[in-house]
């Protein structure tokens, strides 16, 4: 079996609209190239973007943690300084000295001179009552030994309280230390009110985005510079978030209508046991990252667009080139088809010449005989005029039969596709070769199953295929004593096709030649005899009809070509050509 490359140009009646074929090709190429080009780009971008996200997120978090720790240190220092000041006062001055109101006042003024640090300052005796006091409130009657911080102070020697209202009913904190002098213990106590604390914190966090607050370990606001009213209320923070000494956490808080993500940076103070918390909107915090995100997308879209443009232009160029090549091929093929037709006619020439010259020769000799001797009175051997006329008639009949067949063949050169009766076609074509083949010792037989379905096709095309295959089969017997060519037409029920086989007992095709026999201009015959077009043309004709052509050959034994034609279900009869019906030719 020999198969053939599939790039057989379509000959006529193209099924597909060529425009849509090429634009489909264009879009297919384009899609394929776009997918190939953009997927790696997307993967790389996604990967880069992802690592950048990860990296920048980590970096920003670290930076934020450093900042919160630094701020925490400032707040810590603030409290430590205040405590230190109290210690300095108690070391420099004696209890006796400080008990005097005017002395305490001088010290208070000194420490508040550069900045207002203290709300008030008091010296409290062991029993819990003020010995002296500088400040705006009247606290002389208060017994401090019953307050919540007194016991802790006595136990630890120093205390910084959370914000509370106290006797004065104003939010403030108390810082106090205990001193011992000659066996008596006394207390130096200062207060910082909430307003001062908030002011301090506000100064600290100037330039920071978001809100900074101080919370005690139960989650109550100690300072909230942006909304002082919150002080001493419980914050919404889950205190377990602030598990480490300091850290940065992303929390999502469910607010009515939407889920918001927040960044919380926190750091615990040394004393008091408060936590400094800075809260920032997630999107605000990662605005840079969002910008990078947008940049990535923009880059992707711009790249994809430019890839698209470049690809579209080059694909358009390629498709145009393909289109041009196809049309060149089509033109070449059309030329080939024309040459093939001529070749098919040429293949008939030898047989036709033989079939006409022989009867002409008989007529010529009869006429010569009659002219020479017919008029002579030659008794006993008078020429039989009846026999003479009969012989002339017979020979003219022979000639007209062959010319009729030839005409019916050539008339079809410009024919239309129609249902073709294959058994008739076989008879016609075989008739053109039969005699000629026989004089070469080759017997041609054709048989067809009864009730063959018809084949839809151009009758000339089908004749051409048969002419090509039969004349090849006759040629294959060149130099042999004789042989046989069998043509058979049968319905292939399984495939729904009509099968025609042409078997010969000729020389066969060598294994090396077999792959090439369907190529245009491949011939093993001498120049002038072979054109190499017969099989190539036959192949494209059969392919165009939607059929198949196979060959099986055994060198030295013979060759069988198998043709499969799709059958037509139209019940119209073949257009009857006037030549085939007018049996009584006018020249008789």
């Amino acid at each position, binding site marked *: 079996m020999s198969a053939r490359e599939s790039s057989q140009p379509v000959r006529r009646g193209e099924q597909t609209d060529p425009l849509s074929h090429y634009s489909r090709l264009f879009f297919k190429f384009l899609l394929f190239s776009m997918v190939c080009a953009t997927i790696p780009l997307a993967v790389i971008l996604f990967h880069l973007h992802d690592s950048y996200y990860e990296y920048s997120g980590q970096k920003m978090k670290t930076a934020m943690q450093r900042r919160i720790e630094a701020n925490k240190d400032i707040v810590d220092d603030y409290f430590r300084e205040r405590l230190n000041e109290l210690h300095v006062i108690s070391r420099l001055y004696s209890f006796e000295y400080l008990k005097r109101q005017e002395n305490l006042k001088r010290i208070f003024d000194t420490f508040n001179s550069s900045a207002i640090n203290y709300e008030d300052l008091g010296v409290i005796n062991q029993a819990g009552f003020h010995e002296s006091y500088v400040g705006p409130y009247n606290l002389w009657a208060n017994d401090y030994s019953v307050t919540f911080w007194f016991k802790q102070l006595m136990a630890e020697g120093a205390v910084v309280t959370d914000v509370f209202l106290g006797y004065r009913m104003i939010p403030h904190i108390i810082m106090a230390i205990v001193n011992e002098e000659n066996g008596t213990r006394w207390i130096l106590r200062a207060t910082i009110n909430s307003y001062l604390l908030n002011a301090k914190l506000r100064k600290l966090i100037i330039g920071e985005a978001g809100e900074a607050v101080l919370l005690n370990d139960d989650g109550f606001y100690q300072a909230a510079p942006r909304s002082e009213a919150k002080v001493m209320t419980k914050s919404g923070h889950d205190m377990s978030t602030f598990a480490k000494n300091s850290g940065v956490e992303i929390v999502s808080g469910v607010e009515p209508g939407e889920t918001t993500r927040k960044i919380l940076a926190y750091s615990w103070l040394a004393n008091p046991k408060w936590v400094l918390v800075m809260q920032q909107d997630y999107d605000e915090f990662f605005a840079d990252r969002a910008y990078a995100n947008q940049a990535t997308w923009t880059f992707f879209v711009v790249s994809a667009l430019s890839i698209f443009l470049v690809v579209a232009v080059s694909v358009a160029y390629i498709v145009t080139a393909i289109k041009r090549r196809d049309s060149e091929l089509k033109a070449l093929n059309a030329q080939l088809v024309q040459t093939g037709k001529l070749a098919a006619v040429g293949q008939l020439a030898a047989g036709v010449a033989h079939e006409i010259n022989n009867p002409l*020769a008989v007529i010529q*000799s009869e006429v010569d005989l009659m002219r020479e001797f017919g008029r002579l009175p030659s008794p006993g051997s008078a020429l039989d005029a009846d026999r003479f006329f009969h012989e002339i008639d017979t020979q003219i009949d022979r000639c007209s039969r062959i010319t009729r067949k030839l005409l019916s063949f050539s008339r079809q050169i410009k024919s239309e596709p129609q249902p073709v009766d294959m058994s008739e076609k076989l008879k016609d074509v075989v008739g053109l070769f039969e005699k000629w083949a026989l004089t070469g010792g080759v017997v041609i037989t054709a048989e067809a199953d009864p009730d063959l379905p018809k084949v839809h096709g151009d009758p000339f095309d089908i004749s051409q295929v048969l002419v090509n295959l039969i004349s090849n089969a006759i040629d294959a017997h060149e130099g042999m004593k004789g042989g046989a060519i069998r043509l058979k037409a049968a319905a292939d029920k399984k495939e729904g096709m009509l099968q025609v086989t042409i078997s010969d007992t000729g020389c066969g095709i060598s294994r090396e030649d077999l792959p090439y026999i369907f190529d245009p201009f491949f011939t093993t015959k001498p120049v002038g005899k072979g054109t190499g077009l017969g099989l190539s043309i036959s192949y494209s004709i059969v392919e165009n009809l939607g059929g198949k052509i196979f060959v099986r050959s055994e060198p030295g034994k013979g060759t069988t070509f198998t043709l499969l034609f799709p059958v037509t279900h139209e019940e119209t009869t073949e257009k009857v050509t006037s030549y085939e019906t007018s049996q009584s030719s006018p020249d008789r």
Partner: protein
Amino acid sequence: MRLPRVLLIDDEVAFSRTVAEFLRRKGYEADIAPSGEEGLKAMREKTYDVIILDLRMPGLSGMEVLKEIDPSRKLAPEVIILTGFGTVDSGLEGLNYGAFDFLAKPVKVGVLIEKIMAAYERKLMKEA
């Protein structure tokens, strides 16, 4: 001069029969053979001076018969090739194998007789 003895080898019997009759009426001795094999057989039974040979015949082809006859032999008959489809190639090939001349059908019997006489003359010269 004796008229030549002629053998027509042609599968187109209607033709060779008519030509043979013409020749006989002209006083020639003329036989016909419908195939190459028959022709060679006839030549074994009788000597001929000139053979009219068709190229395309079932069975032995004219060219094979020509090779068998080999007109270059001293006593061999002369051969005139006469065929229905005359290509120059096959004519030249025939001449190479020693044929006297090549004629294409249809041919006037008068022309054929002229050729027969010319061939006969050559045969006589060859024998002499």
